[in-house]
């Protein structure tokens, strides 16, 4: 078996010295596959990983997934900092560079159009959280862990507390989602486009509270600060929610079709 070609992005040609020393997955140096006025940013993938089963197994291991995701991002961010860039989905792998060149030829028009749409633009991520009074999650976890070992009275107290907390929680959640919709409308006005991601589960996020809204806004790079500042202000004005703003990011969330993901 020979090496395969892992593609990070398609971009407008750029000065290769700007990517000198850039390494991708497994520390492999990146190179460019060119077709007319497009380049694919590629690195070789070791033969051992160059089949679906092996690659899938790696991606299903959290530590490996993280290493590959961060390598992918490092390359995309470095390229996107110097030229219009169309990021690829994680783990787009072809047998050879020739196959990547074929892809550039086949999808040339689509790549050009998408690059035109993304050129000079970045995405800003906005997540909105509701904070729940009381350690609801903590109480749940503690009770589930001790399940049955406590006295009957402790059980009744727990159930009552839990009902009250659930009611408060639902009220807070509704208020927060309404606030999120209003904030989204304001931010969408400042953006060229928006995409909504699924909300993040509390287990995955280091942020306190429950994520009720998770979106990305595509903006001209020069307006990213304005959108960020506006989002921060909206968050500061509303005592019932907490905002977390990420980015600017390369326009990952907008690389697909206009209809979005």
């Amino acid at each position, binding site marked *: 078996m020979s090496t*395969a070609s892992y*593609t990070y992005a398609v971009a407008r040609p750029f000065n290769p010295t700007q990517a000198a020393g850039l390494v991708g997955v497994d520390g492999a140096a990146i190179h460019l596959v060119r077709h007319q006025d497009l380049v694919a940013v590629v690195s070789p993938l070791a033969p051992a990983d*160059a*089949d*679906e089963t092996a*690659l*899938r197994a790696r*991606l*299903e291991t*959290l530590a490996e*997934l*993280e290493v590959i*995701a*961060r390598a*992918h*991002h490092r390359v995309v*961010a470095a390229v*996107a*900092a*110097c030229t219009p860039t*169309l*990021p*690829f*989905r*994680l*783990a*787009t*792998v*072809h047998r050879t560079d020739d*196959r990547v060149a074929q892809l550039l030829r086949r*999808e040339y028009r689509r790549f050009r159009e998408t690059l035109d749409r993304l050129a*000079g*633009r*970045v995405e800003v*991520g906005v997540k909105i959280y509701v904070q729940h009074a009381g350690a609801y999650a903590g109480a749940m*976890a503690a009770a589930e*862990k001790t399940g049955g070992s406590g006295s009957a009275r402790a059980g009744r107290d727990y159930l009552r507390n839990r009902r009250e907390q659930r009611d408060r929680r639902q009220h807070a959640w509704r208020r927060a989602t309404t606030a999120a919709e209003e904030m989204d409308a304001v931010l969408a006005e400042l953006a060229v486009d928006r*995409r909504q*991601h*699924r909300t*993040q*589960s509390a*287990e*995955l*996020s*280091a942020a306190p509270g429950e994520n009720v809204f998770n979106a*990305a806004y595509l903006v001209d*790079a020069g307006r*990213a600060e304005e959108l960020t500042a506006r989002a921060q202000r909206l968050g500061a004005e509303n005592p019932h929610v907490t905002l977390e703003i*990420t*980015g*600017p*990011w*390369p326009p*990952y*969330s*907008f*690389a*697909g079709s206009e209809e979005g*993901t």
Partner: protein
Amino acid sequence: MSPAAFPAREVALVDLLDRLLAGGIVLAGDITLAIADIDMVQISLRALITSLDRTTRSGAAERDQ
């Protein structure tokens, strides 16, 4: 020509996976993981949750003992 510089600080993995598993242009490679997007998101996030869950559970168990 520099349309954007991106923060050098490390991004949160969960935010990165939102983008790398649900974003990015989807193309049929020869090794077709990238187009199995829904699968990938579910598999990967399940792995992530299981792993984090295990970490928090074992942490809590130690505290209780």
